[in-house]
């Protein structure tokens, strides 16, 4: 699909992008996502205040193929307000199909706004391995604002639109997010599909 030169050039280019999550400088993250489309395990480190790099191994459920990829995320812009934070991130992955050894890439843009009560997130990603586009929107709120040491519970409505093979598959999943210090658990289900995220920072 690509020559080695193309892969190297693409890696350099995509490494200039950067994505979600970007945490604190020096912070590391372990992240597991199991969604209707993908099972994804990531490990990475935030090297500067706006650059994250790591590895991910994921299984694409529609074609049941697995990939290993370098994942590089860039904080493009952040707005810090007295009671809110908003961010725009560039996301990128580049890697290989574990069976066929074909190269793959994935690029995206993630934007979010949150205060202590509400959160809005949008993400759009293009993946080369199935030439698909994924659009996700999350609207979230917490019924109870907790302090730093408390356990926070967020209720999230997650909408996804997966466009591939001239088809569009849409799903809406209610998700519950539980946060305690550096641990995050999310679980969602809509009767047909389930969604799970486990994440920790350290």
């Amino acid at each position, binding site marked *: 699909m690509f020559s080695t030169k193309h892969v190297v050039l693409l890696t350099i280019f995509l490494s200039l992008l950067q994505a979600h999550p970007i945490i604190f400088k020096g912070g590391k993250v372990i992240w597991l996502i199991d969604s209707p489309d993908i099972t994804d395990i990531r490990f990475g480190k935030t090297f500067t205040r706006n650059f994250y790099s790591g590895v991910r191994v994921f299984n694409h459920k529609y074609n049941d193929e697995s990939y290993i990829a370098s994942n590089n995320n860039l904080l493009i812009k952040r707005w810090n307000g007295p009671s809110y934070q908003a961010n725009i991130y560039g996301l990128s992955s580049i890697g290989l199909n574990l069976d066929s050894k074909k190269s793959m890439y994935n690029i995206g843009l993630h934007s979010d706004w949150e205060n202590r009560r509400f959160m809005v997130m949008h993400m759009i990603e293009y993946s080369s391995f199935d030439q698909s586009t994924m659009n996700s929107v999350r609207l979230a709120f917490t019924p109870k604002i907790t*302090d730093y040491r408390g356990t926070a519970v967020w209720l999230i409505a997650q909408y996804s639109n997966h466009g591939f093979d001239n088809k569009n598959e849409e799903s809406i999943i209610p998700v519950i997010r539980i946060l305690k*210090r550096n641990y*995050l658990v999310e679980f969602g289900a809509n009767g047909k599909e389930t969604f799970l995220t486990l994440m920790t920072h350290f």
Partner: protein
Amino acid sequence: MKKTLLILTLLFSFIYSQDSNLKVEKDELVVEVSGMVCAMCAFGVQEGLSELSFLNQKVYKADGINIDLDTQLIYIPIDLSKKIDELEAIQIINDAGYDTIAIYTNFDGKKIEKKNVPKSVS
């Protein structure tokens, strides 16, 4: 005119309440920040500041510091026998993703001093 006066009154009462309710110990830096709305993200501030060279770790034990998300204040107990480098603390807070606004100190135990600081240092 009435609306302007009302807005100004509310603004000043907010500023007054923020400062008047603030308690700062002699051996403490209190840093006002912006954007610190998520507890999980604020964990980075704690992780970074717990490595501060002049931190007094006896006060908050393993946590090292105290974070108040309501007021956007970070309480850093300091060891006065060591060199206090405020920029070191500001940089760590910036590296965790937040802008810094001001540092409050009370070294003589009588009067809280407020010092405006750059919102970000590289």
